[in-house]
Each structure stands twice: as C-alpha cells, then as structure tokens.
C-alpha cells in the first residue's frame, strides 16, 4: 500500500513516537485479565459444538451410505432393546405367576422361586 504522506512528515511522526512515553498506570490485574481473555478465545465454545452438530446433520448425514448406516443402526438398537426389555418383563411375570401358584396350593408358603 502506497503512503500518501510526505517523507519529512513521516520522519517527524517517527521521531514523536520514539519520544512518546506512556505514563498512565495500568488498570489493576491488567495482565491477568489479558490472559483470561486469551484463554477464553482459545477454549472451544458451546456454540462450536452445536455448529459441529448442525454441520454433521447438514453435510454428513445426507450422504446415502451414512444415512443408510445411521437408520439401520438405530433400527437394530430399537429391536435389540425391545427384545431384551420384553424378555426381562416376561421373566419377571413368570416368577410372579409361579409364586402365585405355590401360594395358591400351599397356605404355609408366602414366597417361592421359579422351577
């Protein structure tokens, strides 16, 4: 970029700047505040996480192979969770009914377990 100022004015400005002394005191804890601002600027913000997530949904998910994998994985997860939960529920009910049977035939028994 070409300067439009005169060369002698430029020289005078440099001379003034060399002589300039800052005698105003720094604000209390100035250095700490500067380092805190640097740390804040460098730390990954929550907004960058959401931006990443949005980018994942916008850019990565619509790719056919990724979309197919995602949908299949969630379907398998749902089916597996449903089957396991149903098995647990059935076992619990079996145990309850077997206990009811024992209690119905034996008045002295208050509890029982499965065969």
């Amino acid at each position, binding site marked *: 970029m070409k300067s439009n100022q005169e060369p002698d004015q430029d020289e005078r400005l440099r001379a003034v700047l060399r002589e300039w002394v800052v005698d105003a005191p720094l604000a209390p804890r100035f250095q700490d505040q500067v380092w805190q601002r640097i740390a804040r600027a460098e730390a990954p913000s929550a907004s960058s996480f959401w931006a990443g997530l949005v980018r994942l949904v916008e850019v990565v998910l619509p790719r056919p192979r990724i979309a197919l994998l995602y949908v299949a994985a*969630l379907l398998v997860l*749902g089916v597996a969770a449903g089957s396991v939960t149903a098995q647990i529920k*059935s076992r619990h009910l079996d145990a309850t009914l077997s206990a009811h049977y024992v209690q119905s035939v034996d008045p002295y028994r208050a509890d029982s377990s499965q065969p």
Partner: protein
Amino acid sequence: MKKGGLILLLGLLLCIAGFSGFYYLGTAPCRNMMHEAQPELAWLKKEFGLSDTAFARITALHEAYMPQCAERCRVTEQQNRKLKDLLARDSTVTPEIQTLLTERARNRAQCEAEMLKHFQEVSRAMPPEQGRRYLAWVQAQTVLRPQAMESRHKMGSGRHLMETPHM
C-alpha cells in the same frame, strides 16, 4: 438441513417402532396368560408344556383341591385364634394349650399330606418327564423347602456367637 433433519427423524422413529414392535411381540404370551381365568394355572401349562387334555385334568384337580385347602386353613385360623387367647390368659403351658398345640400340629401334618397327594396327582396328569420336574420343583418350594429352623442348626451358623468377645 431439511434432508439431514428428515433422516435424523426417520432414524429415531424407526428405533421407537423397532422397540415397540419387539416389546409388544415379546410380551404377547405373558399378556395372554394374564387374561386367563386363572393366570397361575396358565403359567403351569406354559412352563410344563401341557396339552389341552392334561391342562383340563389339572384344572379339575386344582379346583377340587382348593375348597378342601380352604377348609383346613379355616380350622388352622380358628386354632391360632384360640391359642392366642389361651396364651394371653395363662403364662404357663397348661394342658389345654398342650392339647391345642398337638391338634394344630396334627392339622398341619394333614394339610401337608393332602398337599403332597395333590402334587402327586397333578404330576401324574403330566407327561412323565414334566411330571417328575414338576414334583421336584413343587416339593422344593413347599413341604421339602428348608425351613428357618433347620438352617439355624447348620454347621458354622453360630460361629459368630463363639467369636464374640466376652465382656
């Protein structure tokens, strides 16, 4: 975003549908059992793989046994009440209390004998292998089950008392 969001939603919907469908199918036999008139007998049918004929026979045996069982329960309850009254009145074991305890024990013995007879009849109404399995299970759950009294006298059960330091 629109296409990606739709895929995201589709995945979640399929996950929910898969869960609900398999949960519904997996618990259908249990739900059917619970709708039977006697769910515990329906469980017996399922657990021991009984045919309809065997199940009908076992249901009949069960229904014949239950009123007798209820009558014995009524007698036991009467004896318990009477014993409670006698114990509240006397602080020693009187001949009347002794007689009542004997009657009560006799009633319990008869109850257990009738129970065993019923179990044996039920087991005979089942296919032989299932009958043996039923008999072993039901006896272990009822009359042959270890009682608290027996477990008190098992070896080592009182060791912690021996180890208690004397004051």
